């Protein structure tokens, strides 16, 4: 053992540390230095983007959402997100997600580049080190409709109205059929009522961003129909009729219910189960829900902010639409034309901003036209009115007119006596109408969906054997 003497030497105080001690000391110092250098040179990876939408084709109302792997510091995102071409919008941050809501509809057919600049900071201080950039193209609004009309089982379809040779695309594949539906204002989701067995009806959601269908609400003992989105997409109002399967009393009268789309938890609008209601309609700001209550004989306007309700008396049992600015709501009234035996329907506008909810007739009482339907244009000033002219022939088709509230001018749009028109749906930009037409003169004719362009006056068939058109922004 050659090293034995050495080890004796190492016991001397001067030699307390041997080569190993020194080596370890150097190594430890070097490692600590290296760690310090790595820490000083800082973060070169930062936070990363996990998910971003929209991609590919998107609605003109699309909300841009970017999800990160860390929770974001809301202050760090200001001025970091930009669209080119430029678009106005509002940025908000919740947890890991950054959201940008456009102020106006995005330009159709336009390809937008979203750019999130580097420097977005997470709560733990890590930064987004590289700008994140991607593109999406804004698709034209689509027209959704129910078809086929000649079959008791109908499903939802959609078609691009601006491509003349576009084929409708089927969205739902229900076994028992779709009864009614509604589309979110941002064009992301469709809620529809689907028939189940024993006349039950359930609410389903079709998400266009993921092309997937899921159940919003299963109604095993009731028919849940006529869903209506609160404009922010957070709540769906619907009619619920209990089928009274256990008592055998037969289907009951509908009540208005609400279902939260994030939790899926339903609740009746009124705690009193004897409050009836149908035709739920949301105000554009989501504050009011209008529905018709046959017990009290009027439209009940429920104010969610004040938890109060107001009543608009009308025996007609119909709830019209809110104007886009939320000021007006309309409903029909039936009057006897002075000096005749004829009864006609006219529309009444209610000014919701006025204290006493002042009512205003759309046309003078003496107007001999029979007004069947009404639909707002997005400017809240003009309406599309579907009216039957006062000729006394039995089969008189309803025709489309434009009526201007300020000038009281009425312009005929689509007037062809051989057809009856209705179910007008105004496109999000207010330039096109999708509506149902029915050929009166043709035996065996089926309802069709037509497209009318308000600027050019062009009229074109969109779909045969179809009904209930709505615009998908």
């Amino acid at each position: 053992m050659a090293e034995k003497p050495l080890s004796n030497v190492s016991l001397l105080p001067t030699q307390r540390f041997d080569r190993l001690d020194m080596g370890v000391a150097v190594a430890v110092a070097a490692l600590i230095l290296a760690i310090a250098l790595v820490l000083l040179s800082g973060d070169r990876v930062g936070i990363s983007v996990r998910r971003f939408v929209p991609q590919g084709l998107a609605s003109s109302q699309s909300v841009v959402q970017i999800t990160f792997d860390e929770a974001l510091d809301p202050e760090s995102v200001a001025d970091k997100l930009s669209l080119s071409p430029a678009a106005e919008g509002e940025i908000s941050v919740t947890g890991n997600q950054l959201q940008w809501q456009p102020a106006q509809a995005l330009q159709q057919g336009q390809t937008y580049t979203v750019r999130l600049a580097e420097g977005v900071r997470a709560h733990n201080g890590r930064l987004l080190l590289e700008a994140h950039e991607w593109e999406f193209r804004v698709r034209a609004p689509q027209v959704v409709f129910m078809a086929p009309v000649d079959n008791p089982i109908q499903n939802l379809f959609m078609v691009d109205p601006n491509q003349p040779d576009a084929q409708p695309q089927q969205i739902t594949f229900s076994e028992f059929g779709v009864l009614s539906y509604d589309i979110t204002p941002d064009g992301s989701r469709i809620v529809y009522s689907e028939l189940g067995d024993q006349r039950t009806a359930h609410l389903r959601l079709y998400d266009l961003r993921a092309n997937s269908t899921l159940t919003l609400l299963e109604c095993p003992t009731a028919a849940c129909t006529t869903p209506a989105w609160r404009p922010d997409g957070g709540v769906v109002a619907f009619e619920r009729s209990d089928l009274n399967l256990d008592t055998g009393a037969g289907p009951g009268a509908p009540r208005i219910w609400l279902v939260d789309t994030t939790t899926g938890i339903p609740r009746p609008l009124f705690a009193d189960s004897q409050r009836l209601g149908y035709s739920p309609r949301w105000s554009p700001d989501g504050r009011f829900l209008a529905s018709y209550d046959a017990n009290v004989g009027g439209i009940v306007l429920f104010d969610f902010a004040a938890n109060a309700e107001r009543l608009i008396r009308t025996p007609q049992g119909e709830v019209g639409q809110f104007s886009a600015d939320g000021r007006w709501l309309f409903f029909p009234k039936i009057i006897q034309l002075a000096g005749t035996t004829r009864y006609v329907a006219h529309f009444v506008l209610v000014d919701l901003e006025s204290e006493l909810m002042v009512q205003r007739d759309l046309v003078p009482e003496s107007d001999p036209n029979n007004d069947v339907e009404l639909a707002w244009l997005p400017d809240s000033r003009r309406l599309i009115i579907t009216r039957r002219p006062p000729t006394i022939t039995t089969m008189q088709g309803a025709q489309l007119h434009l009526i201007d509230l300020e000038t009281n001018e009425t312009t005929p749009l689509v007037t062809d006596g051989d057809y009856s028109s209705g179910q007008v749906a105004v496109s999000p930009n207010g330039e096109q109408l999708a509506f149902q037409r029915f050929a009166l003169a043709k035996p065996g004719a089926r309802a069709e969906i037509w497209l009318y362009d308000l600027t050019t006056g062009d009229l074109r068939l969109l779909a045969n054997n179809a009904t209930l058109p709505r615009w998908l922004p």
Partner: protein
Amino acid sequence: MEFSTQLSLFSTRFLGIFIEAVSFLLLGTIVSGLIEVFVRKEDIARLLPRNPFAAIVAGSFLGFLFPVCECGVVPVTRKLYQKGLPVAVGVAFLLAAPVMNPIVFASTYAAFGFGPILIGRFVITCIMAVAIGLIFSLQRNPIKMLHPRALMAMAGGSGAAAPQPSAPRLSVGQGIVRAARVATDEFFDMGRYLVMGTALAAGMQTFLSQEQIRALASDPSMSAVAMAIMAFVLSICSTTDAILALSFANFGFPSGSLLTFLTFGPMVDIKATLMYLSVFKRRVVFYMVILPLLMSLLFGIFINLNVRF
């Protein structure tokens, strides 16, 4: 929580870790016993390259020959020392073997698939073991590094200078009995550390909250430190820690920190440290803790801050 509930939880965890680990410990002690009886000093010397650097590299791959996890590696190493293995090579083996073996490869592959974690774990472990082995080769004198008890056997009980007689081969029967008795001693010697380490790990899991540590997950440097502490305290067997690391991945720990866990844990934890104390002097054990700690932190933090997966 009531005490009886906690006691029952503790008991379940304690017995779970113990039953799982005791098998590996027995495997290790039996291998150790067999090495004692059937492997000669000359065999190891023959097996390892002459060049010290090559020997250290070979030492870190020795685990593929002696597939043991960290519960079993210490008795094997001690036995190898008694058979004349250079201390530095033994250190490289001791640190690398719990990872560098087929069982751990399989479990890491099962957990993370073939990817950066699997490759990173083996490459980093290898680099660390070789580097630490090289540092330890600065001191060649075993007396200054090994615990007297480990040395005593090495010296044949009669001083370092006494020439060890070349033992005549035992018959197989005698050999097995002898190996069994060696294994018994090893089992009790190492078993107490296993029991204490297991009790500590089970106690931590039962009585402490992991929540604060989880909050650290998002910090690139502190999460690596947290993973190192976690690895040290949990003392999970290296054959199974990859699966545990998977659950940390779920809590949001970044890959670099997971690699800290997967490289530091098998080298150093409470149980292993206590076992090291039976073989090495305290000073050496301290080095064997501090060097892997700093190295695995360096790798982990560097990867967290500089590598995008």
